[in-house]
């Protein structure tokens, strides 16, 4: 997180243009399935980013992100059924999921620590059960097909790339803004942030609203590109996915969640093709390792390496 913070705008912009160019021409080098995989990794990266804003920046370990992912996905379904266009539908997904973020955040804002984890976990269990129970609305565990014409793989990719870039820019601006500073203060030391005049409730609810909206965007994109939705979108293991990606990638950074999501999407794809059911074992081991040995994730490792080069070349 220090690297991101210490970079000035010009440097950041250069990196951004380079990365964007690489991603822009990427489909030319990739097979059709790789395009699908990268598209999915980007969507999941946006989803993990939404969790990272809540955890990595505001310090709340939420296992409830799947609620907003699911809400966003179903918003797209019904928005399409109502004949609305893609852009409007995605916006709607952001707003509806953001509204749910506001409600959920408002309800749980006073809870702290390990209990917060429990409350959000039970929250996503509840939403999943509600989705199962209201099959007329959600299609239950079997789900529903989203009524849309599938666009081409490349169109999908560029759409998702565009949305991801927007989300990243938004997040970068947000975390470097005074508001972002307040969130980091709350993460680092709630008590003092309160003593300095910041209403913890207000800022936590704001974070949940923003995080919810972005998760809804990811859910909406997912529903659109995969063409289906199901109650499983709400399942708390989806929340856990976001947690794992973010921790492995590097919490408290904007790039980390994308790294984590991409890494695990690729690892899961390779592993499940090679050895099948050993994947969860690997992920579990990686998570333990990450927590105990490199709590700042892959991004933290990368950053450390780069710092070492800097130190070497300087000396």
């Amino acid at each position: 997180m220090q690297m991101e913070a210490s970079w000035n705008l010009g440097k950041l912009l250069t990196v951004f243009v380079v990365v964007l160019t690489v991603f822009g021409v990427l489909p030319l080098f990739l097979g059709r399935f790789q395009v699908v995989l990268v598209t999915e990794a980007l969507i999941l990266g946006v989803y993990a980013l939404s969790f990272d804003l809540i955890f990595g920046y505001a310090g709340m370990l939420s296992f409830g992100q799947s609620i907003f992912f699911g809400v966003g996905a179903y918003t797209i379904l019904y928005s399409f059924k109502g004949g609305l266009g893609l852009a409007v539908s995605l916006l709607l997904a952001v707003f509806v999921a953001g509204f749910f973020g506001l409600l959920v955040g408002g309800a749980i804002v006073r809870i702290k620590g390990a209990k917060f984890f429990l409350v959000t976990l039970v929250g996503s269990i509840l939403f999943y059960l509600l989705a199962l129970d209201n099959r007329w609305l959600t299609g239950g565990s079997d789900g529903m097909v989203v009524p849309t014409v599938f666009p081409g793989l490349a169109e999908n990719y560029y759409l998702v790339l565009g949305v991801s870039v927007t989300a990243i820019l938004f997040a970068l601006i947000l975390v470097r803004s005074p508001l972002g500073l307040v969130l980091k203060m709350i993460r680092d030391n709630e008590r003092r942030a309160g003593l300095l005049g910041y209403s913890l409730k207000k800022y936590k609810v704001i974070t949940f609203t923003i995080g919810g909206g972005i998760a809804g965007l990811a859910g909406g994109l997912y529903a659109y590109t995969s063409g289906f939705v199901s109650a499983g979108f709400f399942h708390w293991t989806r929340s856990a996915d976001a947690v794992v990606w973010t921790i492995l990638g590097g919490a408290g950074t904007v790039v980390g969640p994308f790294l984590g999501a991409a890494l695990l999407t690729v690892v899961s794809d390779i592993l499940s093709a090679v050895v099948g059911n050993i994947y969860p074992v690997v992920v579990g081991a990686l998570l333990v390792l990450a927590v105990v040995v490199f709590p700042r994730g892959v991004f933290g490792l990368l950053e450390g390496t780069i710092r070492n080069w800097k130190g070497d070349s300087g000396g």
Partner: protein
Amino acid sequence: MIRVGETLLEVRGLSKRYDGFRALEEVDLSLQAGHVKGIMGPNGAGKSTLLRLLAGEIEVTSGSVVFAGRAVTELSVDRTSNLGISYMPQRPSVFPALTVEENVRGAAQTSLILNRTDDESSVKTLLDLVGLGERAGVRAVELPFGEKRLLDLAMALATRPRLLLADEPTAGVDRGSAETILGLLRDLSLPDSRGDFGLKGLIFTEHDREILFDFPDEIGFLHAGELIVEDVPEQVKSHELVRNYLANQRVFEDFKGDVGKDA
């Protein structure tokens, strides 16, 4: 607008109980604008509890607090902070992962969307004031204890308080930093330098008798949750219980564990 000589803070019958334990009992207290008040008393006497009640960090069991003519008894800590009461906690309380500059900027900023230039300049002024200008880019966690305390003070001042509540500002702090802190508090409490920060009053708790009897206008002595005496330093010194306390201070200091601190 509060003028020198008018009442800044008016406390009536303030009490606090934890599960039946009386941390503070029927405390009456007032502070005139322009005055500095020192609070002394043994550990567990309720000094921190008093300051935290005034700051709104913990809930009042009974009694009332009026600040600048406004009842603030029921307000939460962020509201009182925004009204101009700033509380500097007993132990250093900084944002460890953020830089020194970010710590102060976070306290000083007045907009949520934009980094305003006048915020930036006040951050710089404050850092220079406490002597941390050179350390602006260091992460707070890496600061030694004394500098953390300086940072604490800079943050407490950054909110532009009218009343500063400082809880043992020099306890455990190295000599150099302690002098900086005391010098600042003393300067800030001089009428002509108050204009810079708009500070109208200061209440602090302290163990060290030299500091205590150095510059405050009034001193209060807390014992077992009760405000035994509150008067000008000379009068307080002559009070029997205070004399006892001062004589035995070494004994008190050896006593570990402050009952009020974590409650």
